[in-house]
């Protein structure tokens, strides 16, 4: 405390003065640390959820891009006409970008691993396949089925990837919700830290008045509070992030067959996101405190 006793005789040292002009801020200090820790902890989970949802939606979207397959099973003499008819129907269906008839050679290649190279594909009642790629809008499967039933009796639409579309939508929504939660937590932290700052300034009204009286600028007075709250927030956020990361790390892994939960977590480089958390929360605290102190100071001449 008593810097005057050291040999240099210098009282308040250059670096330390701003930090010492405001006495310890009591409960507001604890409040800031706790809030930052709690928010960081929650952000870790929201982030994990958002990242997991993003991964799921990516994976499912990739599967979706595979489109659908049309199978045609018809007597040999009708095969070619039905095939042509089906292609005609598909080409005139809105939402379909590309239609490609799988050639018999390709089909042979597909079946070879199971039946060997000598399989006489022509002689067997093997269905012919048409590969369908949707465009961005997607087509209406119900309408297509009705048209096919009327015009191509042997056609079966195998819309295997379609069930995944709502899942992708859901995953994208979870991702957005995760991000929204993170923004909300940031705003909540800012609000709490603003309140803590204002409480600290009210408790130190006398200190602020004295500093003003002796010619301290607003920036000097504000920085005494801002530095303190920013450091507290950083410290709290570091603790909260570490705790959150540990909790994530201890979640059951894939090996435990924990189904959907196994996707919840950080993968490789994603862990680095967590390193950014304490500085970001400290930055939120910095701006919130600066704003609050400046506003409070303006009331005082």
């Amino acid at each position, binding site marked *: 405390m008593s810097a005057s006793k050291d040999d240099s005789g210098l009282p308040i040292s250059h670096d330390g003065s701003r930090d010492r002009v405001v006495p310890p801020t009591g409960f507001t200090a604890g409040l800031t640390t706790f809030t930052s820790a709690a928010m960081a902890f929650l952000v870790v989970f929201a982030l994990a959820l958002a990242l997991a949802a993003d991964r799921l939606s990516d994976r499912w979207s990739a599967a979706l891009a595979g489109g659908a397959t049309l199978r045609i099973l018809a007597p040999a003499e009708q095969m070619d006409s039905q095939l042509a008819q089906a292609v005609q129907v598909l080409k005139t269906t809105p939402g379909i970008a590309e239609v490609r008839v799988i050639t018999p050679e390709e089909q042979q290649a597909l079946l070879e691993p199971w039946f060997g190279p000598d399989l006489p594909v022509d002689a067997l009642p093997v269905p012919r396949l048409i590969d369908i790629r949707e465009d961005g809008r997607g087509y209406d499967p119900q309408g297509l089925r009705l048209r096919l039933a009327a015009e191509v009796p042997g056609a079966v639409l195998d819309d295997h990837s379609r069930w995944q579309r709502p899942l992708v939508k859901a995953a994208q929504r979870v991702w957005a919700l995760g991000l929204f939660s993170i923004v909300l937590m940031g705003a909540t932290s800012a609000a709490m830290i603003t309140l803590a700052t204002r409480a600290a300034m009210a408790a130190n009204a006398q200190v602020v008045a004295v500093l003003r009286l002796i010619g*301290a600028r607003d920036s000097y007075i504000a920085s005494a509070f801002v530095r303190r709250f920013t450091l507290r927030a950083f410290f709290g956020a570091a603790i909260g992030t570490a705790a959150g990361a540990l909790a994530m790390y201890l979640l059951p892994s894939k090996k435990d067959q924990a189904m959907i939960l196994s996707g919840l977590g950080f993968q490789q480089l994603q862990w680095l996101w967590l390193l950014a958390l304490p500085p970001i929360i400290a930055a939120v605290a910095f701006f919130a405190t600066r704003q609050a102190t400046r506003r409070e100071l303006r009331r005082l001449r």
Partner: protein
Amino acid sequence: MKERDLIDLENVAYTYSGGELLSEMTLSIASGAFYFLTGPSGSGKTTFLKMCYGALVPTAGNITIFGQDLRAMTRDDIALTRRRIGVVHQDCQFLDHLNVVDNIALPLAAAGQDSLADGANLKELLNWVGLGHRADALPPELSGGERQRAALARAVIMSPDIILADEPTGNVDWEMSQRLLQLLVELNRMGKTVVIASHDLSLIRAAKTEVQARVLRIYNKRVQLAGANL
């Protein structure tokens, strides 16, 4: 405004919810002079001083501080101006968690001039006000007279052009008030302008042998230069 006036008041009035406190004040604080500001309790002495260092803005009229119009000054301008004005507040006001020497050096720290606070100068200043042995004490541990002297030391550490002292001898005995007066007279001899607000007429009479003081009296909301007979 004359060349050597530090603070000019032009038709200044101060009105608050309770009515008009001061009105039609026109006067100049000349550089190098020694002033007493007197008047009954509640007459507006503190209010007058607060306007002089920009803590209050007059409700009418203009105040010019070091050539700057108070109304046009930004908050930073006011802060910078206060480094040239040493204020001894009526109730002193310290940072109670910092010891005496840190409190006295506070204006230097706030001005980012800590390097100027070399230990020898501070010791000298403390000894000058007779607080050399109290450097490590906390303000609440000081007596009334010690507080007043510490406040005076803090007011002069930036080597201001003018010292505004509000009841500097407020709650000290006669001997101590003479000592404080002596310090202010010494500062005036060093070229500083001094304004002392006090309702203690005996102090003012005693000072007459030491210094040629101008006595301003607030009477009936107006300020007037008092005659020889107080």
